[in-house]
């Protein structure tokens, strides 16, 4: 039923051909930069954004004067004019902002690459800066008390009055249904979290670098919104990450091994909402991720089996598992079994996942840290390096209008 529903709506013949896609192989990520990832940065987001951008530009071997485009989330608290003034960017010719929170991480890269490929900008910086741990938390149920008296939109009026106003609960509604339909054993969910923590222990920059976790620890972690536990959830973080995108032509002369953009895509399918898309025929899947994956593989001309390492946007462990199914890395309903024991998803496994520790154990920089880790895999500089990594797939947030990209060495 799900595939029938999806395929009826997917019309690749109506889309530009892969040959017409100027982003493909003509653009590259040439610089990555970040701040410290912490639970309390003690400074504001503008400060962190500037540090991350300076680091990324220096990493690329460029100067601030070379930057002529900026890309960010609409959620971003720093404003672009403020970044321009703080860094002294002289000629900013292109800006773009994208909604939907973490769903936009790959989309920022896509828009930057499109600007570069069409010559409207030469070097575009994508950035995300947030004090998620010490400042405002998106995920807390009490975040609205004293701030709103009404649900903010027409649609939230159908959710908020029932005590249903946090992303974890919204996702839990899918998780419950998925577990019900496929008979998933709740204990199987934990392996994903365990492997990511192992990766974080090797990554000195990860927030949970010094906090080992076993599968038994997972099972002992408190249930937050049944069926999801504390250790299913990402780690609220303060920090910033920036990426520099330019043309493949210019990339050749820069400092680092370029991570070429083989494909990047966004997706917003029918009946989409922000994690509450409950009026689709089937709820045990993530159509936005399915569409995005179809588009990525169509443009790239590769399939799931060709991917050497994946960085999946994992606000909750279960969100990453469902993506494995939607992207064709395993059959529907089999992702939990795929991850059981962890061997398939460790750095030496069949499909290494989230090698920096992911959003669960490295940092929750809304997917930007996943793209940076993808670039490190291409460069061969990850702390959990996958041998011979040629193709890396990174995704944006599941359950919202999403995006993703495939990087090539």
């Amino acid at each position, binding site marked *: 039923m799900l595939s029938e529903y999806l395929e009826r*709506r997917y*019309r690749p013949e*109506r*889309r*530009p*051909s892969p040959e017409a*896609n*100027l*982003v493909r192989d003509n653009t590259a990520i040439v610089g990555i930069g970040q701040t410290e990832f912490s639970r309390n940065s003690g400074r*504001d987001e*503008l400060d962190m954004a500037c540090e991350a951008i300076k680091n990324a530009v220096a990493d690329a071997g460029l100067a601030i004067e070379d930057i002529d485009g*900026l890309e960010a989330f*609409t*959620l971003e*608290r*720093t*404003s*672009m*004019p*403020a970044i*321009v*003034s703080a860094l*002294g*960017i*002289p*000629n*900013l*010719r*292109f*800006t*773009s*902002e*994208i*909604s*939907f929170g973490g769903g936009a991480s790959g989309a920022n890269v*896509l*828009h930057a*690459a*499109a600007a570069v*490929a*069409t*010559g*409207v900008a030469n070097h575009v910086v994508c950035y995300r800066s947030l004090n998620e741990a010490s400042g*405002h938390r998106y995920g807390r149920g009490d975040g609205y008390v004293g701030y709103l008296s009404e649900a903010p939109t*027409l*649609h939230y009026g159908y959710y908020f009055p029932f005590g249903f106003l946090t992303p974890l609960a919204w996702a839990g509604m899918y998780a419950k249904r998925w577990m019900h339909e496929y008979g998933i054993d709740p204990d199987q969910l934990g392996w994903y979290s365990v492997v990511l923590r192992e990766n974080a222990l090797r990554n000195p920059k990860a927030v949970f670098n010094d906090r080992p976790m076993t599968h038994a620890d997972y099972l002992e972690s408190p249930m937050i919104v049944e069926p999801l536990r504390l250790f299913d959830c990402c780690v609220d973080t303060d920090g910033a990450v920036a990426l520099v995108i330019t043309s493949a*032509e210019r990339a050749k002369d820069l400092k680092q091994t370029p991570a070429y953009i083989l494909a990047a*895509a*966004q*997706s*917003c*399918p*029918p*009946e*989409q*909402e*922000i994690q509450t898309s409950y009026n689709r025929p089937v709820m045990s899947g993530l159509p936005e991720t399915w*569409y*995005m994956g179809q588009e990525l593989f169509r443009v790239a001309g590769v399939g799931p089996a060709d991917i050497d390492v994946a960085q999946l946007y994992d606000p909750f462990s279960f969100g990453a598992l469902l993506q494995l199914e939607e992207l064709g890395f395993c059959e529907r309903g089999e992702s939990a079994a795929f991850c059981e024991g962890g061997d398939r998803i460790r750095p030496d496994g069949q499909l290494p996942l989230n090698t920096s520790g992911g959003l669960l154990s490295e940092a929750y920089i809304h997917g930007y840290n996943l793209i940076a880790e993808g670039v490190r895999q291409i460069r061969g500089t990850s702390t959990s390096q996958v041998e011979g990594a040629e193709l890396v797939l990174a995704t944006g947030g599941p359950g919202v*209008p999403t995006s993703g990209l495939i990087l090539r060495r």
Partner: protein
Amino acid sequence: MASIKDATAVAGIGMTGFSLDSGRTEYSLACEAIKAAADDAGIDLLDVDGIVTDVSDGIDAMYVQKAVGIDNCTYASDSHFGTAPMMNAVTAIAAGIAHTVLYYRSVNGSSQRRAGSDFRAAKETKDNSLDLIRYDFYHPFGLLTPEGSIGMIVRRYLHESGARPDQIGAITAVCSEHAAKNPHATFYDAPITVDDYLESPLLVDPIRELDCAPAVDGALAVVLTSAERARDLRQPPALVMSVAQGTSTGGELLTSYNRDVISALPEMRLMGSELFETAGISPADVDVAQLDDRFAPLVPLQLEELGFCERGQGPELCEGGKEIRLGGRLPLNTNGGFLGEGFLYGANVIEAVQQIRGTSANQSSTADIVLVASGAGGPADGLILRRQGT
């Protein structure tokens, strides 16, 4: 390297009537405008694979999709300055990422939210913005509204240029003349003379009520596709010769007070030079221009920054209205502009397309090349459209 020049075209336009109280939701207005634009272009909305809009509007693209029946978007953007999303649409199509992109705006700017003209509304629209901290240097002193913020810059401009009130009033009067023939316009049947302007109350001295474009309720939509495909559609294509943005150091939204010269729009200058360079033309080649007249006193400054006249000559060019009205050297804002039609970025793009098609309520006898500029007083953006075969 590929170029955006002439790669894309506007194939369809649609808008609702503008009013001071629509009595409908922004959701409903958006659906009407989008369907009108698709019908105008002669496309099926299922062909749309990209949507760009403005994040400060009330209705998200994903909800619009649910109602107008757009299945899957593989491109989306919500840039929120002027008509900046148009640049996203153009680059997406030119880069072969999207096939047909919809740009829409929908606001109950008059009846529900005074778009940006009071601080509380601004706070609600972008509550999380760090810009609010910057405002701490202005708000405690009673400088709260856009009219006040831009007034500081206008005062300095009037002081330095010696522009006279009647020269500025000529802009409002010309826009009103144009609006009087445009049934969509809010001030369709209320012509304004220079004398009316001079008698209009000061809102925040030196800004008069008739310097400011009225907030309105309404929606609009634009369909963009490749130039190649546009040729096969229902309407004569308006080819996008170029599209550009500009953001400069020291810039703030309406409060760029810490530059050597504050009576200038360096963002507009940067954007304009990009625009003309990509298009391969000069200001003299432009037949009609839709400039940002949210605040009338910024129009002569734009004329200067975009190279339509020398520095300091803007007020003279506007004087009496002869050069800027229909039939003049450079007809401006032929729909009545934001001053006459109502303040909603995107309406300037629609009027440019009408001129290219030859269907404007104030049609210019020559309208082969039309320029649109938005974002005066902050990050700027614009585009140049041309008629096929010129």
